[in-house]
């Protein structure tokens, strides 16, 4: 720990926010930055693509089933002669959408619940975490089936349902982190300045947990995408003929010996997305930690 900051080191310009700082640190991490742009590219491709493509995701043509990739169909066609490219785009909308929404739900519920339980500690905290245990013990599929039958089948509801299950782990993690952080003297110092508990949780504790949260969130996105394809397989998720990456990969795996492109291309999109999310999450963790600023 340097006693004096050497005069040559540039101090950050005054008044820059925590987030502004974090961004400038992220911008210096090349891998994370490339990942970010690739993700933006894939998202644009999936969101804007279907309008430009000229085919619908369910336009069938039995004259061109299982076509190999060519100029007219860069990603080939499937068993019903549907354009695989537009199906990947539309499937991407579903998978990315579900990944983001469900993760957002996970973040909001899990982080707040875990942080409050951790800070409250004692009997209230224990009670709150026992509730999490109870929900944990509940079979996930039954829970989702219940939700979907009560509230009708709806894609957004599905997103929320998955988020509502995934938050449990996030809550446990944040709970543990907050419990250990709250014993540190800076929390006592904040209390000594007369800060109320909600400000201590929000301003003092959460930034300290943010690194872990971000990494876990980037791991949640792929698991949620996989979960969706599992539910679709059970007939609870997105319904055929609507594609999702999960269902496309599953279908492709069945045709692997005859038309490998039906597996390789969607799998490529899926794995590139996951890689990018992991690199980005790693970069964010470093960027959000002010102590990692050295170069």
């Amino acid at each position, binding site marked *: 720990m340097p006693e004096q900051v050497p005069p040559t080191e540039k101090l950050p310009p005054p008044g820059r926010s925590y987030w502004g700082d974090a961004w400038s640190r992220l911008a210096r991490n090349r891998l994370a930055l490339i990942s970010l742009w690739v993700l933006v590219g894939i998202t644009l491709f999936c969101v804007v693509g279907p309008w430009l493509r000229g085919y619908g995701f369910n336009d069938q043509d039995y004259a061109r089933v299982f076509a190999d990739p060519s100029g007219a169909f860069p990603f080939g066609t499937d068993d019903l002669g549907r354009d695989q490219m537009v199906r990947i785009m539309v499937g991407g909308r579903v998978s990315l959408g579900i990944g983001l929404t469900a993760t957002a739900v996970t973040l909001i519920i899990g982080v707040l619940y875990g942080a409050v339980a951790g800070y409250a500690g004692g009997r209230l905290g224990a009670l709150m975490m026992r509730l999490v245990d109870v929900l944990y013990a509940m079979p996930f599929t039954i829970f989702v089936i219940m939700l979907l039958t009560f509230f009708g089948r709806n894609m957004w509801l599905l997103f929320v349902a998955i988020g509502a299950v995934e938050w449990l782990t996030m809550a446990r993690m944040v709970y543990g982190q907050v419990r250990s952080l709250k014993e540190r003297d800076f929390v006592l*110092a*904040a209390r000594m300045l007369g800060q109320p508990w909600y400000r201590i949780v929000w301003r003092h504790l959460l930034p300290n947990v943010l690194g872990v949260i971000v990494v876990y969130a980037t791991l949640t996105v792929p698991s949620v995408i996989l979960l969706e394809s599992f539910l679709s397989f059970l007939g609870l998720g997105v319904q055929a003929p609507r594609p999702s990456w999960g269902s496309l990969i599953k279908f492709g795996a069945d045709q692997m010996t005859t038309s490998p492109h039906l597996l390789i291309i969607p799998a490529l999109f899926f794995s590139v997305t996951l890689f990018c999310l992991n690199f980005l999450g790693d970069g964010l963790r470093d960027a959000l930690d*002010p102590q990692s600023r050295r170069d």
Partner: protein
Amino acid sequence: MPLLDVQGLTTRFAMRGETVHAVEDVSFVLEEGEVLGVVGESGSGKSVMASSLLRLLPMPPAQIAAGQALLQTESGPLDLLQLSEREIRRVRGREIGMIFQDPMTSLNPYLRLSTQLTEGLRRHYGLSKRAAIEQAIEALERVGISDAAKRIHSHPHEFSGGMRQRVMIAMMLLLQPRLLIADEPTTALDVTVQRQILDQLGALCRDARTAVLLITHDLGVVAQRCHRVMVMYAGQVMEIGPSQVICEAPRHPYTQALLRARPSASLRGQPLYALPGNPPDLREPPVGDPLLLRPGVTGGDRWRTERPPLEQVGAGHWVRASEAVLPAWEEVRDA
């Protein structure tokens, strides 16, 4: 009217059916601008006593079983132990500040100093961010941090331990409290820095007429910097009085033991006197003189079953009665 008048403070912890009697019937007063040292071994209840005043202990398990602590404020005396959570929050920082032992953990590593230093000012005095930052810069300069206008925007890890403790002092004194509780503020620092920090703390508090409750292990600090000293053992006050009197002529055997455990230049090369054993287990409150529970300590039966009273022995000098006889130095050395 004293600034702080504590009477019969008793704090207990309820743990798995057992009760730990951490602080038993502690009373003292503190005048404006006065420095009161609190000394005693680890586990003698010093920190718990201080945290009880500000109600910083987790309750449960902690409970303040009895006592009152009257603090003079602009709006009249307040009993700290009776205030609601919202009211005590207004006292914390504004009326009573506190600095802690380990400066490495007492600042939030994720927040800039500018944020941490201005929080209290904005909350208690309703200052704008700009005005608060200006005051914070001045405060940093007062504790001897050069180039404060620039460095206020750094994070804690860019400062050394001693610097961080200065930042803590600046942070607490910014709110102009009437009383500052310093819980072993220099224990985690090296000796040269210790001295500088205590000098600075002393000067700043003198100028602002801030009273200080200085919790410490270091009797040298007490002799030089405190007006009065309170010696605690087993959660009870053993002796309280003017620090010069107590350091030169300690009356209670426990105070004598503490003073004999000090290294000094005249006893160079000789082993130090250290009482064997540990402070008593406070799950069963000592009924008599707590010192008699210490191995090697002998003494009459007078205070074996009855709690000895505090007796006045001089001007402002009170000592708890004791017939305990400390083990001889030879016995301690061979133990």
